[in-house]
């Protein structure tokens, strides 16, 4: 007699799972089975995960099933398989940041956003691959090899949260958390046909996510639908006493306004970004079609320019590396992580542990940042970049006087081939040219699939004013409906 084949539960939404648990139609234990069955089926091609945490998932499932059996109220994410980017701490897992220097690092505490998901009944399936320390846009900078895009395994899933995006797109989990410093959630969301949100800076606690650039980093979700995105945001947002930059705001139900449509909303197409050289005309066309469709639904569509955002990329590549050079100093071989053998003295230990433990892109960013902060260069680089940041914030403030949301492509292209940009860092950096200004301004933005080109998903980026996630998601929901994008890649369809 063969072992029972797990039911394919991967298509179930967060709400479906809760209903199923409540009615007794399914169990959380089955959800664990289904997730690992899907992982068994696709992971060899996708490589979304650095590590799996089946024991933790089963323990979490047992708790949820006990609640369901007792007829108790089920929390918001009960029984939902979730994956976390491998820069988020969770006791019982390694948190490697896809770096050799942390390859064996075991978490000693829980990331707040992770803890909130688990307290809401989610099942921790594993930790996802990423560009080393989140430096990259393809996951090719992972010390453990690249992840592959479920829509075309020869292409990248984007990055740096590429593993999280790929895991959701491939149905290995229902939702995943990523971190976004310059587009690291939204760009892989665009490449993998998932809904990917970077919340307002301060909306979600950063406690427990290994810092890249503290003033830009923000945790956010990957899901297959806008509704689920809103549900997860509700779970992970809110003031955390462990993060002094987290903002104290009333809890919001981000799903409440989703169905209200876009009638009367003012949507601004960011013309100078959309028309930028290097933006694939087909990608641009999808976004314009999307704008037209929103207009037909009653949105007032207009055009706007954000002239200072042309300096966003260079400013970002000063501020990001500057903060990173300081944040990554602690990986020194003294207390944890990789330590070079037979060092002669403490300086030799530092140098060799870091040179041997960090990958080339990490070393490049640390050098960039160290230089930018050096005496005599600070004003010309870091100081100047902060001024650009202020100008960009003003651009957005002006734009949001006339528009409720702004619209661009998420990335200038669809998913590129593995290796295509690996040797040209600047070409890689350009992949984030539309997403970076959002981090510099600290505003929320979501990437939502708005169509496809040659079988590859295209994401539209919807940006809103600070704390306007409700409006942003409402527009994203409308785009989701008009684009009628099918989030299931052929790889998964072929499994059936």
């Amino acid at each position, binding site marked *: 007699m063969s072992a029972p084949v797990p039911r394919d539960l991967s298509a179930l939404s967060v709400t479906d799972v809760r209903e199923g648990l409540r009615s007794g139609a399914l169990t959380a234990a089955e959800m664990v089975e289904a997730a690992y069955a899907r992982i068994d089926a696709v992971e060899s091609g996708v490589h979304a995960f650095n590590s799996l945490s089946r024991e933790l998932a089963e323990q979490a499932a047992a708790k949820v099933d006990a609640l369901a059996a007792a007829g108790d109220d089920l929390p918001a994410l009960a029984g939902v398989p979730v994956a976390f980017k491998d820069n988020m701490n969770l006791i019982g897992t390694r948190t490697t940041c896809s770096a050799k220097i942390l390859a064996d690092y075991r978490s000693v505490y829980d990331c707040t956003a992770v803890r909130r998901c688990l307290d809401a009944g989610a099942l921790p399936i594993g930790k996802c691959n990423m560009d080393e320390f989140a430096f990259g846009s393809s996951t090719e900078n992972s010390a453990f090899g690249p992840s592959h895009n479920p829509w075309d395994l020869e292409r990248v899933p984007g990055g740096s949260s590429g593993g999280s995006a790929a895991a959701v797109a491939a149905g290995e989990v229902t939702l995943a958390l990523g971190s976004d410093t310059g587009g690291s959630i939204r760009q892989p969301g665009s490449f993998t046909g998932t809904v990917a949100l970077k919340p307002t800076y301060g909306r979600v606690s950063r406690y427990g996510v290994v810092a890249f650039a*503290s003033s830009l980093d923000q945790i956010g979700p990957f899901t297959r639908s806008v509704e689920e995105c809103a549900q997860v945001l509700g779970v992970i947002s809110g003031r955390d006493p462990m993060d002094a930059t987290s903002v104290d705001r009333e809890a919001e139900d981000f799903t409440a306004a989703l169905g209200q449509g876009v009638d009367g909303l003012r949507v601004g197409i960011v013309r100078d970004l959309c028309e930028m050289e290097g933006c694939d005309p087909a990608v641009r066309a999808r976004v314009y079609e999307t704008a037209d469709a929103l207009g037909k639904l009653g949105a007032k569509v207009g055009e706007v320019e954000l002239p200072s955002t042309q300096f966003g990329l260079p400013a970002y590549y000063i501020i990001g590396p500057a903060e990173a050079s300081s944040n990554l100093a602690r990986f*020194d071989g003294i207390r944890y992580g990789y330590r070079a053998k037979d060092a002669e003295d403490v300086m030799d230990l530092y140098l060799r542990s870091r040179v041997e433990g960090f990958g080339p892109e990490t070393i490049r960013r640390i050098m960039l940042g160290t230089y930018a902060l050096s005496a005599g260069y600070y004003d010309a680089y870091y100081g100047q970049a902060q001024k650009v940041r202020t100008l960009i914030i003003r651009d957005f403030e002006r734009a949001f006087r006339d528009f409720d949301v702004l619209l661009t492509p998420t990335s200038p292209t669809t998913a590129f081939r593995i290796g295509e940009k690996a040797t040209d860092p600047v070409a890689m950096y350009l992949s984030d040219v539309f997403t970076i200004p959002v981090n510099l301004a600290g505003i929320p933005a979501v990437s939502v699939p708005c169509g496809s080109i040659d079988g590859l998903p295209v994401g539209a980026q919807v940006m809103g004013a600070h704390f306007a996630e409700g409006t942003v998601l409402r527009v994203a929901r409308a785009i989701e409906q008009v684009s009628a994008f099918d989030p299931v890649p052929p790889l998964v369809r072929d499994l059936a």
Partner: protein
Amino acid sequence: MAKDRLAEVLQEWEAVIGLEIHTELTSLNTKMFCGCPVAFGGEVNTRVCPVCLGMPGSLPVPNEKAIESTILAGLAMECDISRFSQFHRKNYFYPDMPKDYQISQYDIPFCVGGHLDVEVDGDGAGERADRAGLRPSEDGAYTTRIGVTRLHLEEDTGKMIHVGGAEGRIAGATHSLIDFNRAGTALMELVSEPDMRTPEEARRFAQKLRLILLTLGVSDCNMEEGSMRVDANCSVRSRGDVELGVKTEVKNVNSFKALHDALAFEIVRQAELLASGHEVEQETRHWDAGAKRTSSLRTKEYASDYRYFPEPDMVPFTFDDAYVERMRATLPELPDARKARFIAAYGLPVRDATALTGDLALAAFYERAVAAAGVARSKQVSNWTLGDFSAFLNANGLEADETCVSPSALAELVGLIEDATISGKQGKDVFAEMAKGGGAPGAIVERLGMRQLSDTSEVERIVDEVLAANPDEVASYRGGKTSLVGFFVGQVMRATKGQANPGVVNEVLARRLAQ
């Protein structure tokens, strides 16, 4: 270091001294950026958490109470409080610093531009060769105003324990261990202006700072345990020169005496180098209290680049006038004000007021004793507090609030002397009994039968006996040898076992001998 040599050198050379003083805010319950407890010692690496260990992903959350303490200290030194302030990261690699950057302050500290008035009296006042522009006071003492450049807040590092080398120093060590219990403790750094000219002024400045911080209750300021750490910058120049000499920084100064002695050594060393045609090297030097000398710790070949930038894990701080005034209103009575009040309210000489207010517990003891004895006896209470009582405290290493001698008991003792129940000499014996836990002074006097003999007729009877027993001396006295009065007093005291009231004895003797 011979004192004379320093005085000699300072006649010819002028020393320029500035201090950097780090004080751990030991009164706080928790560290600067996390919830770990603050305490000296403890099993190594037990007072730690992901934040103060700099574990990946952890974040600092500022301790509001630490900021309040710093602002209070700034107000006590008449600093300006920055209305906008922020933390910066000071980036450098060292194993005792878990994040490999220190959260500190850079261009906008919480407090700027204050001062302390430092009174220098006693022997140390003599170190100052040039008194121009100073405020002189009694007995050769003087007061000098020392500028406070800034007062900022930062986090302390862990402690390195070097194993295998001499005296725990890194030279010759086989390996090093790190204790992070101290890491992240709130550390207040004061930078003074280079306004001090003698080692004594530096010592007095540090002592004054300590007294203020103790008054505010923000730190225990224990130099031996390292909760107050003084680094001294010092250079010398020929008297009359305007340009500053090359300075050295002296570390490992673990007491006020060490601060004075290290600076005295350094001033003489630098002056002798320059006098013999050599140059002073800019360097950090280590004070060896045993050998009584400084030695080179490290040479600053090039200035370190700390790559300061604003700490992005925290939002900047803004303080409005209302906040600053609210803080100012919570300031307790500060040492200078207390001293002035002791002079005005108790009619004390400056010297007494300085000594009493220089020690918080002693000042509090004195005030309670005066309250019990009455202000009319304030000087007598001061004499006893600074005399026998202080000697007793010093001999036993006690604070004024740690003994069995209560302020009201001392007041009672003063009362017994003042109302002539016992003599001052007897008072000393009574105090000795009190200090041994012998009970209230009145009871001791009863028990020892010490009551002073003040009854005139009784004294007259004894005087008459003494005069009758010593006719030769009486004749000599009456013949003009009046110095014999001491002899008669002694005889009367012997006859009364020291209990006769000296005033009454003198009066009766004078009367009887004149007859």
